[in-house]
């Protein structure tokens, strides 16, 4: 028995057909539910706004009243019946009347249930819309992962860290320009911090090597972690895991080789001044030189590095130190040129430009976890280049070559190397990540306080205010994002391209 109770037994179709899965059981919804054949159920607005019912649903009496004038004209009624049987039962009393009206020969010829098939010749009109099967495969928000407050807060620390380091850089520049801070002391502190970071990095590498003998598996693990934890959930399914793994290996190998060749930085620098932005990308100066600005796979490369012998590690250290000296001296040589590079540009333009460049740096920075295929998608070089460009532009406002050299070196340390260290630290230890965030927030707040008010009091008030404001902003933004989730409306259905599931690649 098909689902239309008032329809006559259907003419059997020529070939056994597969009916729609939702109709298979001959489902009969309770009549009170389908008291009226209401087109509102089909309205596309239903998919979007559940509240907007543009068409009203009058009661049964209304139906009968509307039916009666029609019944006077038999021809019309019959043709209406022929074209479209009411898709539902309008109640028991109405049904009887209905039968009487439409139980003519024309009605008898009518076939049974409508089928969602194209190859069957159906006696329904082409614009017939079946109330049961229409849009029944529609899914709304099928893969939405609701955010929680505290994980969101924890994730936002990454952004806070970067913004804070930018703020610190700007404050240092202001201090240098106003003559309050000696540029040499700034760069000395920066270099000490960088050296400390490098030692720490090297030690991590050593311990990691001791406890992990199989680098390839670690890469696979890292890859896995990124796909589950990356904030952008669009992981390309076709790019299957083994492939990504191979890719990252190749990638890592290529880079470590490049940093092993001492000629590589030289060759790059020979392209001229603009190469300066590249050297920041390629931070061969002291600390994690072998990571080589490769924000994508420090881990994988590192594992490859680990798998090589202890001797090669020493050699690697040596080459890192060598290339760092190379950077140092070339920067020293370039400083006079950088100083006069944008001297002819008006200061207003310089401020505006550096502002925009730093904003660009903040917005295009790769905040991802940085491992696996997901990390390399974003052009991380854009953000680093923007930052180094900003500092190059700012350097022309400084009085002497020493100032310029210090600022440039400091910017390379802050924008080129520090992010890599931060990423690694987050990966190694969550607690120290939190502590680093706290320290950065306090220092940034203090630096702003000193810049605005001056003195120790300013620093204390600044760091206090900075911490509170940061916490408020983090909380507020997280809460805002969570509250925005209710507007999320993803509609998916059979028209979406299927995601192919491929077990293994052809290798």
């Amino acid at each position: 028995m098909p689902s239309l109770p008032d329809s006559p037994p259907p003419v059997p179709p020529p070939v056994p057909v597969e009916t729609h899965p939702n109709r298979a059981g001959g489902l009969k919804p309770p009549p009170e539910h389908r008291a009226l054949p209401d087109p509102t159920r089909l309205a596309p607005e239903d998919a979007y706004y559940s509240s907007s019912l543009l068409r009203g649903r009058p009661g049964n009496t209304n139906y009968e009243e509307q039916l009666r004038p029609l019944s006077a004209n038999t021809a019309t009624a019959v043709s209406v019946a022929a074209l479209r049987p009411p898709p539902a039962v309008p109640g028991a009393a109405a049904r009887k009347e209905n039968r009487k009206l439409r139980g003519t020969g024309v009605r008898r010829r009518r076939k049974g249930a409508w089928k969602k098939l194209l190859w069957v010749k159906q006696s329904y009109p082409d614009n017939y819309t079946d109330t049961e099967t229409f849009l029944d495969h529609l899914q709304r928000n099928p893969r939405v992962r609701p955010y929680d407050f505290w994980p969101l807060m924890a994730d936002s620390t990454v952004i806070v860290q970067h913004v804070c380091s930018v703020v610190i850089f700007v404050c240092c520049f202001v201090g240098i320009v106003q003559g309050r801070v000696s540029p040499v002391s700034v760069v000395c502190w920066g270099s000490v911090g960088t050296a400390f970071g490098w030692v720490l990095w090297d030690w991590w590498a050593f311990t990691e090597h001791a406890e992990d003998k199989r680098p390839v598996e670690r890469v696979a693990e890292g890859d896995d972690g990124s796909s589950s934890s990356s904030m952008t959930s669009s992981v390309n399914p076709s790019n299957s895991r083994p492939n990504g793994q191979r890719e990252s290996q190749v990638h890592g190998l290529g880079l470590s080789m490049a940093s092993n060749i001492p000629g590589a930085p030289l060759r790059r620098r020979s392209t001229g001044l603009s190469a300066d932005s590249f050297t920041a990308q390629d931070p061969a100066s002291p600390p994690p030189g072998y990571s080589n600005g490769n924000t994508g796979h420090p881990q994988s490369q590192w594992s490859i590095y680990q798998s090589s012998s202890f001797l090669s590690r020493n050699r690697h250290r040596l080459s890192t130190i060598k290339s760092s000296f190379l950077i140092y001296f070339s920067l020293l040589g370039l400083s006079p040129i950088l100083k006069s590079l944008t001297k002819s540009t008006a200061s207003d333009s310089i401020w505006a430009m550096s502002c925009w460049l730093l904003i660009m740096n903040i917005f295009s920075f790769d905040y991802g976890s940085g491992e696996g295929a997901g990390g390399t998608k974003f052009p991380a070089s854009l953000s680093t280049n923007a930052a180094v460009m900003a500092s190059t532009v700012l350097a022309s406002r400084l009085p002497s070559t020493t100032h310029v050299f210090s600022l440039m070196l400091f910017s390379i340390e802050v924008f080129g190397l520090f992010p890599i260290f931060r990423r690694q630290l987050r990966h190694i230890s969550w607690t120290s990540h939190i502590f680093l965030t706290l320290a950065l927030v306090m220092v940034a707040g203090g630096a702003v306080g000193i810049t605005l008010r001056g003195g120790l009091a300013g620093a204390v008030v600044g760091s206090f205010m900075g911490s509170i404001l940061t916490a408020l902003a983090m909380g507020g933004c997280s809460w805002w994002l969570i509250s925005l989730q209710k507007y999320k409306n993803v509609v998916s259905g059979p028209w979406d391209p299927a995601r192919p599931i491929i077990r293994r690649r052809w290798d």
Partner: protein
Amino acid sequence: MRRGVYAKRIVYSSMVSDFFFPQPGGVESHIYQLSTKLIDRGHKVIIITHAYKGRTGVRYLTNGLKVYHVPFLVIYRETTMPTVFSFFPIFRNIVIREQIQIVHGHQSLSSFCHEAILHARTMGLRTVFTDHSLFGFADAGSILTNKLLKFTLSDVDHVICVSHTCKENTVLRASLDPLMVSVIPNAVVAENFRPLHATPHANDRQSGGTSQLQHTPRPIGPNDIITIVVISRLFYNKGTDLLIASIPRILASHPNVRFIIAGSGPKAIDLEQMLERNVLQDKVEMLGAIRHEEVRDVMVRGHIYLHPSLTEAFGTVIVEAASCGLYVVCTRVGGIPEVLPQHMTTFAKPEEDDIVLATSKAISALRSNKVRTERFHDQVKVMYSWTDVARRTERVYQGISGDISPQEFYGYYPGEIQEAGSDRIRNFSLIDRLKRYYGCGVWAGKLFCLCVVIDFLLYIFLEMLFPRANIDIARSWPKKLNEASSTKTERDRLGSTS
């Protein structure tokens, strides 16, 4: 008993799309076949498209089908530059010259079609839109296309979709009343897709194969070679990745299986690499891109047609394959499950394992001779024909131009308020049109209204500058419409609608 209502009226309609011959493709042949069959039914149809290289001006095709190639700037993949208004003067001229009553646009990516529908509404003509493809809702490109579609379709008279899935998609994309959307599938010219062993007809195009035409197909033995044919452009959304992954596994488990792959695309390199890596060159034959006329000749060399597509609105090619007598293995995506009956197909999920499984099932079904593939051609011929498509399209034309009463055309909902029903008949007064456009969105609605008002002013301006009286009326193609055939079509239309 209702014969009086069906006074046969000739409809003057024009198909508008960016896509038409000489470019090959599904939409192009759809437009051509539909127009030809509508002309056969006594209507007058012209086609408006943009100028192709070597095709400019006005052309006549077979059966007096007139094609206007309008010179226009092509920007991307034969799609014209979307200038909202610049098409209007020449469009108006053509429409007046040919006395067009209905403008029928095809394919949502064609900017020509959208512009034509907008201008036609401004000029007070009825419009139909046919959607041939599926779009998602997620990515930026789709969102833009959907907004544009909403703009055009908020004032269209009727929409035709090629499958029920396509209808659902279009209704959602453009927020349409579902009763204003008809489902009329594509069709195939069954004579052009005849199996190898079919009995020859008088007008058979196959000249070389006359000697073997009389044979009945030999049943496939357990050790005979089974050939699997794949004809598709090698793109990601055609499922080439699935194909690449499953071919070695299918060939490994079935030694007496061969593949023939026709088509080209960016994934061809991956496919060739897979063949080289697994040393399968002697089992897989790659033909490269083939012309549409050659499709049948390739298809009849095989026994199974494999279609691993990831999205498909209708999938004409699987109907063509079935018509050639091939057993079809396809993925259950989009509108594909609606297209062919179960005994002609094996469905698979879009997964590598499932495709391998389904293909193996199909191979064993063929080997055990359970599938009567020699009957497929005649069955498909009954299911899909362009004559049927033209008849159903004609009903849409009659419905929107008022030859069929709206109650009959849209069905009758007893519980419906009057205005909801009356909204389906789109009247031409500017204020009502603006009301419809205004509902498209907070910003988009206002922008669309602006466009419509400018379009209207442009129309008035054109009427003053180039008055209608000065435009010559084109003479129709001389045609013998014999009375017998017209009464016959009359009769079968009556039979189908009542």
